[in-house]
């Protein structure tokens, strides 16, 4: 059986090399994972202390991360049209700056952007500046004008702010499900959109729960989304995320 001291030394060496690969200081295939695993297996029987077992676990963990790096490298090389990364790195080091610059210019499409102050912007900023009290005035502002100190918020306060519903969330969902069942199949936006934007958001929020909980289906994509009510709740085996943006139209 190999000696424990020798085993510790070997495992630490493997660990150091694994870390170097993770930190890109060594090429990914500098460690032969299969061979390293055999070595750890050979030494495993000799481990008695927690420290040695912990070292063994750390080596296994590091080897699994090396495997990840190696897999990523193979995947990456495939995307390089079979170009050898080492050859590419050597070429970069050998090419004169002018050649590198020319190559870059041939493949570069810089982003175009504008930085401009408009007369309207200046006018707006000037009005703001003129109406702004001086720093000294603001510092000595009447303490009575400061916002009131914090206080405990009650359920009634939250209900008044529209954050907490008096009717309860599930009864709200139930009412919405009944409404949807009466429609059967309906255009998502027709069902959700209301004159008040806050109400539109509230209904979209409710619909998201109906769909997630399996009380309704959402079919289609883009602007063509159809809501279909289910007569009974369906327990979903898988789920898919769908982001729907809500916003106030600038023309509104």
């Amino acid at each position, binding site marked *: 059986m190999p000696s424990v001291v020798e085993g510790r030394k070997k495992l630490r060496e493997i660990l150091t090399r694994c870390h170097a690969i993770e930190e890109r200081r060594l090429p990914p295939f500098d460690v032969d994972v299969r061979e390293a695993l055999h070595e750890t297996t050979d030494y495993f029987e000799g481990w008695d202390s927690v420290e040695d077992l912990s070292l063994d676990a750390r080596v296994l963990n590091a080897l699994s991360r090396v495997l990840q790096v190696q897999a990523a490298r193979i995947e*990456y090389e495939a995307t390089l049209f079979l170009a050898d990364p080492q050859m590419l790195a050597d070429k970069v*080091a050998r090419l004169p700056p002018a050649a590198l610059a020319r190559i870059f210019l*041939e493949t570069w499409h810089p982003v175009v952007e504008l*930085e401009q102050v408009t007369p309207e912007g200046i006018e707006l900023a000037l009005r703001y500046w003129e109406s702004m009290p001086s720093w000294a005035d603001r510092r000595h502002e009447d303490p009575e004008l400061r916002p009131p100190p914090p206080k405990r918020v009650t359920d009634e306060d939250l209900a008044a702010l529209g954050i907490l519903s008096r009717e309860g969330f599930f009864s709200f969902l139930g009412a919405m499900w009944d409404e949807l069942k009466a429609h059967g199949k309906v255009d998502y936006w027709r069902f959700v959109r209301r004159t008040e934007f806050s109400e539109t958001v509230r209904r979209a929020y409710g619909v998201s729960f109906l769909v997630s909980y399996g009380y309704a289906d959402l079919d289609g994509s883009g602007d063509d989304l159809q809501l279909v009510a289910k007569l009974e709740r369906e327990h979903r085996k898988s789920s898919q995320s769908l982001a729907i*943006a809500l916003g106030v139209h600038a023309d509104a």
Partner: protein
Amino acid sequence: MRMPEETIAPTPPDKVRRALQLILFRRGRRPGARDWELRNRLGKDHDAVLARVDTLLGDLDLKLKAVSEPGLAEDAGVRYLAILRGTMAPSEARLTGWRIDSLAALSASLAFVLAKQGRVPREDLEDLIGEKLGRWRSETLVDAFVRSGYMFEDDSGLMALGWRSYAEVELKDLIAKVLAAKGTEGVDDDLEGLHDAALDRP
């Protein structure tokens, strides 16, 4: 200056103008506009508006490009940017404000990071640039690449390609051209002139 009547483009509709403003004026840390932002501001026909914007930009040798945010999931959306449709001649490159040696260092850095599987320690990158341009300049250049978005440095000091590299550079072309280039290529006269460019962004 008054332009001849036949060259004046028809006034673009409000939505096209609004889309152009959103895309061209920088409002945050990065230029361009996010897809959800354009959808919200342009309404249902935003695809048609963006197609019209692309056509208008095409007349100016520009184009609209949708770029995914690196590091984010594909469904996290894209950012629309206006980029140069063609490429720049060496004599025009000084307009961008980068010196020839800075461009060369950027080109080498991109190819080097790509060759090293997308991540390299900062010191390795500085060594590569420092070999040709000196230690002090290599440090300031790497900082400049990070600041301008061509490179990204994570907390552990590993360098990766930044959002601007994905947006502006045809990376596969760059690799192909670097591999195909002859190592003995001399310095072009028109590139040599750029050594003295007064405008040096970094």
